[in-house]
């Protein structure tokens, strides 16, 4: 099992902080409004404990944009938010009021695009600072029962093709809210890396901490 030291925890938080700032900048350009951020809060938790932990901080139904990546780091990045907040996202983007059950393909597509921009901005900043290179797959929109979605996402079996995954490997969860005008999208970004990815990631973080 990999455990991060306090200095590594600090460095990872700062990596996320910078990355999320860049993501907010990209989102701000997209919605042509200032995007305020809460101070990001990072939680490092064992993979098998992550679903329960997230569930405690979520509503029964959640939406997510999921994006896998391959390269120096192999893994998956997911941006979670409460299902009803996907409507806020559509309102911010399209400046339209839309009931949840009538989300059209176009609106879902818009959400995927926002997720794509946010996750890619985070991944790009992350890998640039760690001097690594990854290529992202197409993002997916997920919505439904929190428990089922999380179980599927965190299952070591489902994700075993991505490389060796241990139940006690750490998962990075960053709680951060994006706010524009009167709207706030409360959510969190989860970074799941496989065994090799985690080892490479740690090497990169250690390099950043070198005096």
């Amino acid at each position, binding site marked *: 099992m990999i455990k991060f030291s306090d200095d590594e925890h600090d460095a990872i*938080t*700062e990596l996320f902080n910078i990355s*999320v*700032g860049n993501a907010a900048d990209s989102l701000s350009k997209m919605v042509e409004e*200032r995007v305020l*951020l809460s101070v990001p809060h990072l939680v490092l938790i064992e993979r098998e404990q992550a679903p329960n932990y997230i569930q405690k901080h979520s509503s029964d139904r959640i939406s997510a944009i999921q994006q896998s990546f391959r390269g120096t780091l192999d893994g998956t990045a997911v941006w979670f938010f409460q299902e009803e907040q996907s409507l806020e996202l559509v309102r911010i983007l399209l400046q339209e009021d839309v009931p949840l059950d009538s989300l059209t393909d176009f609106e879902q597509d818009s959400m995927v695009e926002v997720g794509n921009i946010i996750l890619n901005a985070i991944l790009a900043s992350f890998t640039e600072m760690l001097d690594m290179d990854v290529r992202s797959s197409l993002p997916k929109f997920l919505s439904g029962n929190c428990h089922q979605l999380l179980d599927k996402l965190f299952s070591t079996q489902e994700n075993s093709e991505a490389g060796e995954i241990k139940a006690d490997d750490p998962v990075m969860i960053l709680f951060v809210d994006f706010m524009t005008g009167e709207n706030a999208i409360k959510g969190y970004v989860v970074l799941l890396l496989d065994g090799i990815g985690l080892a490479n990631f740690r090497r990169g973080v250690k390099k950043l901490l070198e005096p």
Partner: protein
Amino acid sequence: MPFSLLIADDSKMSRNKIKKIVSSFIPDIDVSEAGEGKKTLDICRSKNIDLMLLDLNMPEVDGYQVLRTLKAENISVATIVVTANYQRGSIAEVEEIGGVIAFLRKPPTPEMIEQALKDNNFIS
């Protein structure tokens, strides 16, 4: 008297990096560090600071509040903002408060800091 530098950032890693970069340009330096806004204000009130490098996104008392409080208390500290929150709106808010001599995007490179120090005559 050594050059008095204050680095206000909630990340120890970022403080260390900034300290290393600035020290490479200004060798005779006295560095104070703060991981949050309240301590930043305490240091500014108690010491003569030649230059502060300030992060905006800090817990509880953030960088904007630090700048506003310093302004309200008539404490003048040359400040370089170093932030990941590099949006036009953030820059505009900081400019409106005033007292900031440069605005740098995180992570700052040695070149970015060197330029800001040169532009403001801290080094030649």
